[in-house]
């Protein structure tokens, strides 16, 4: 039996806990994440809840749990949509080559010039802030990332002998891509999905920190950090909890991605 990489196990556990918290928050949180209680405001962790209370007396743990749903939801949707479009572009470029491939790569170049914050500033002017703006802004950046990775991986598959055999059997580009190329690069795609979802979480947090993400009262980790700035001196616990939540979730997804990569490509595990 092959031993599972340590990073895979740790990453999977962290990710499972975070996803679990996000799902649980849909049906249960220790307190109402939007319930104000001015008397119990800015209480440190302890009697007033595991992570204390915020500036209007809401339970921080409950907001963190509900925020997990927001962050993970936006990051996953953006990554899956952007990754899907990028993968389609990447495998098409690899299959067709020539002018189409150059066109796709130039298009990639254009998209790559727009990091999520920049797209969000541009889209924010057009659509205003919100979940949709965040998803599009993050998704746009995922397209060139996935296109690049899948194109490189697919080109290697296209050079194999069994592709020639499939060709001789009369299969077309699209069918070869579906039956032979995609299944053989699926490991790389899954690894990227994990790692890029982590990046999506960081981006979503950044957008809501700037006020360009989901609007209140929808809980979000980034906005919690933004609001904590005013109380940095009086209530430092408000800075710690959301920041840790972001960092741990991203760390978990990165470890999961690394572990999956080591599992599918053992050579990389030794060399880093």
């Amino acid at each position, binding site marked *: 039996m092959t031993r599972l990489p340590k990073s895979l196990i740790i990453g999977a556990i962290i990710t499972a806990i975070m996803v679990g918290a996000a799902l649980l928050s849909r049906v249960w949180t220790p307190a109402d994440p939007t319930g104000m209680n001015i008397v119990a405001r800015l209480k440190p962790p302890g009697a007033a809840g595991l992570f204390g209370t915020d500036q209007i007396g809401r339970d921080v743990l409950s907001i963190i749990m509900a925020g997990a749903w927001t962050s993970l939801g936006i990051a996953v949707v953006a990554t899956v949509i952007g990754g899907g479009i990028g993968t389609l572009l990447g495998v098409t470029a690899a299959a067709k080559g020539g002018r189409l491939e150059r066109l796709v790569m130039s298009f990639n170049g254009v998209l790559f010039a727009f*990091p999520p914050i920049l797209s969000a500033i541009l889209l924010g*002017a057009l659509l205003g802030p919100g979940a949709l703006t965040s998803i599009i802004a993050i998704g746009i950046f995922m397209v060139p990332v996935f296109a690049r990775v899948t194109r490189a991986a697919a080109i290697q598959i296209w050079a194999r002998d069994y592709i020639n055999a499939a060709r001789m059997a009369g299969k077309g580009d699209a069918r070869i891509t579906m039956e032979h190329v995609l299944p053989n690069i699926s490991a790389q795609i899954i690894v990227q999905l994990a790692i890029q979802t982590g990046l999506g979480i960081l*981006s979503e947090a950044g957008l809501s920190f*700037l006020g360009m993400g989901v609007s209140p009262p929808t809980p979000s980790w980034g906005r919690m950090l933004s609001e904590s700035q005013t109380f940095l001196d009086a209530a430092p616990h408000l800075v710690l909890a959301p920041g840790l939540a972001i960092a741990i979730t991203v760390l978990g997804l990165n470890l999961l991605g690394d572990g999956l990569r080591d599992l599918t490509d053992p050579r990389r595990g030794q060399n880093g």
Partner: protein
Amino acid sequence: MTQAFKRLRGLAGAVMVLAVTSLLIFVLIDAAPGDPAEIMLGTSAQADTLAALRTELGLDRPLMVRYLGWLAGVFTGDLGQSYTYGVPVAGLIGERMLVTLPLTLMATVLAVAVSLPLGVMAAARPGKAGDGLASLFSQVGIAVPNFWIGLLLILGFALNLTWFPVGGFPGWGDGFWAALWSLVLPAIALAIPQAAVLTRVTRAAVIEVTNEDFIRTARAKGLSRRRALWRHTVPNSLLPVVTMLGLQIPFLISGAVLVENVFSLPGIGTLAYQALSQRDLIVVQNVVLLFAVIVLAVNAGTDALYARLDPRLRARK
């Protein structure tokens, strides 16, 4: 195909990418709600005054004419007037770059200064304590949002220890050192995620080169481990590190927008963000173009440098 033709095609491709990017920015901003004339004069302005201003600003011309007019302005340095500040956008951007440019440069220098020795140390003895430390640093550094690092640095070094200002920027005119000092914490916040990525890449690159034949030859000739590492391995490992530095530029720019916000620095990120909330869309449009051009230029530059640093790539072209 000749080299010259390939180079020409590459150049044409870059120009096309820039043209499409700028058109995209222009069309999106143009479609955004908010009438510049109304923003400048206020909602209570008379209809004929608004119309006159619209004509003066050229807003009644067709989209393509306005786009080409803007592009011509980009090349001559006339980016138009800010709707809210009433000053030339080019001057506004130039002024704010005096904060953002030193900030990002400082962060890059810091990131390289930390990651290069750390990555090499990790690669020199894989699996040992130093390697573990480096990999812990890179895993955590990549996962931590830079604006959170900024908040923690303020909490620790500005509020508690009072070594640094909590935020703000005194301006270069009020003394070079005070201005530089106010950029130290923001630069650290911006540098940590960069350093984390670079440490990882440096380690992997050094390990890969260590396994190459020419390093074995150098060692067989009697070169000490240390000498072989610094004379042969490290210089030959720099390529992926340089590439990664280029690929990190979009993240550096995004990071600057966030970190400037945390430290209330009057940089270009703050300008873009404030312009957005004030619907000063001409500023947004020009800042976004500037950022996109920087990203594209650095990418093209990285590719060119790549070919220069690795003669094998030139031969293969």
